[in-house]
């Protein structure tokens, strides 16, 4: 239950994060203005950041605790075990989760803290805002970064495609007529988030946004 609730909280974040990022397509003014708007409210910004970090920590802690308990529930493994209908995503939650953790760590050091590739950390645009747009465009002209970010998005997509529908089930939402819709809900949201983010990376890489 805790795993589902912290997970859903993080899903809400990635959805809004993707929507905010899409302002890249509106040009430097929109994106840099949006970034400045967020930084203008330091209390809200830090409350959200601390909330997200503790939610992520709790999510990882609960996942570890559960999987250790689940491992104890079957001390002797089957010699042959065949899955009948479990999705690839549901079987690789631990792997996609770890990919995500590594990716989020890298992403925070890269575009948030500016520790990796610090060239753009303090550059300003003509309006006096921090040049987030320039930083993003610079980053994704580098094929190495593009590969890393696409791998991160693959992890995110896999994780979400099982996670959202699974959380809905764990929270006890069930309806005879709506079940198929609820099941489709997860992969669809996951796909939208991933496509939105990948669009940004590829648009920069292929020079559509410069």
């Amino acid at each position: 239950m805790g795993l589902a609730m912290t997970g859903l909280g993080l899903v809400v974040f990635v959805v809004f994060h993707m929507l905010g990022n899409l302002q890249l397509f509106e040009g430097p003014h929109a994106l840099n203005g949006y970034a400045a708007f967020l930084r203008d409210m330091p209390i809200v910004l830090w409350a959200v950041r601390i909330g997200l970090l503790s939610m992520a920590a709790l999510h990882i802690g609960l996942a570890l605790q559960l999987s250790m308990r689940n491992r104890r529930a079957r001390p002797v493994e089957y010699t042959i075990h065949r899955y009948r209908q479990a999705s690839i995503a549901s079987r690789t939650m631990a792997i996609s989760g770890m990919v995500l953790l590594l990716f989020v760590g890298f992403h925070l050091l890269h575009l948030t803290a500016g520790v990796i590739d610090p060239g753009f950390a303090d550059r300003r645009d003509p309006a006096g805002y921090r040049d987030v747009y320039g930083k993003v465009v610079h980053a994704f002209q580098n094929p190495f970064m593009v590969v890393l970010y696409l791998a991160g998005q693959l992890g995110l997509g896999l994780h979400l495609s099982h996670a959202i529908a699974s959380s809905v089930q764990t929270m006890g939402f069930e309806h005879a007529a709506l079940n198929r819709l609820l099941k489709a809900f997860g992969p669809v949201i996951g796909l939208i988030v991933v496509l939105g983010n990948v669009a940004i990376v590829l648009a920069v890489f292929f020079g559509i946004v410069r």
Partner: protein
Amino acid sequence: MKFTLNIWRQNGPHERGRFITYEAQDVSPGMSFLEMLDGVNQRLLGNGEEPVAFEQDCREGICGSCSLVINGIPHGPDQGITTCQLYMRRFSDGAFITIEPWRAKAFPILKDLVVDRSALDRIMQAGGYISVNTGGAVDGNVILIGKDQAETAMDAASCIGCGACVAACKNASAMLFVAAKVSHLATLPQGRPERARRVSAMLEAMDREGFGSCGNQYECEAVCPKNISTRFIANLNHEYLRAGIVESSLPSEPESPHAESS
């Protein structure tokens, strides 16, 4: 038909088990899987060897006794049936078949392919009942319910408690079993009064027995001989949340109605 069987043999709960290979000969395609094993055992007995222990009773798919993992799938390759309803024509001649017991901490192996499933009984004792006064049976149709309610309750009640859901689950979780029992009773008026207490007690009992948790992979549903839907697991979660809210606002309930009165 001829088959090569790779069967798990284990003398007792604390002994080390191992696979032993047997040949099954002169098998008719119309034989059930258990009849095929009967043939193997007959031959073993003839040779003065110990027959393979496996559980069985009704041999018509309603008792929930048979419990074999066949080539990695509980109750074998067909869906919606028990091991006893699986026929040898389903396998190709000369096939190599691996047979294992249910594997879970909560289901300790007693001998060979027989496991102790009394953990499920203890979950039932914790809350899988309704409390009614003894006396003459109540007339049918005294409490009228809708057709959809009756159908839903019946779908859940078709669980035969074989434990294939536990066997198939990556986490050896008994959620589908508990979900079926809780949903069955929570859907009917007779089960409503103890609804909140039941779901909490049964889930606590499940945890006590050492079953794992639900990862929503739905492998349980795919092997369930009664095709019980995992929507009952969502319903179980719903009941549990509801119980958390209801119980917190109720005065503490009396002890179990079945406790001895002093």
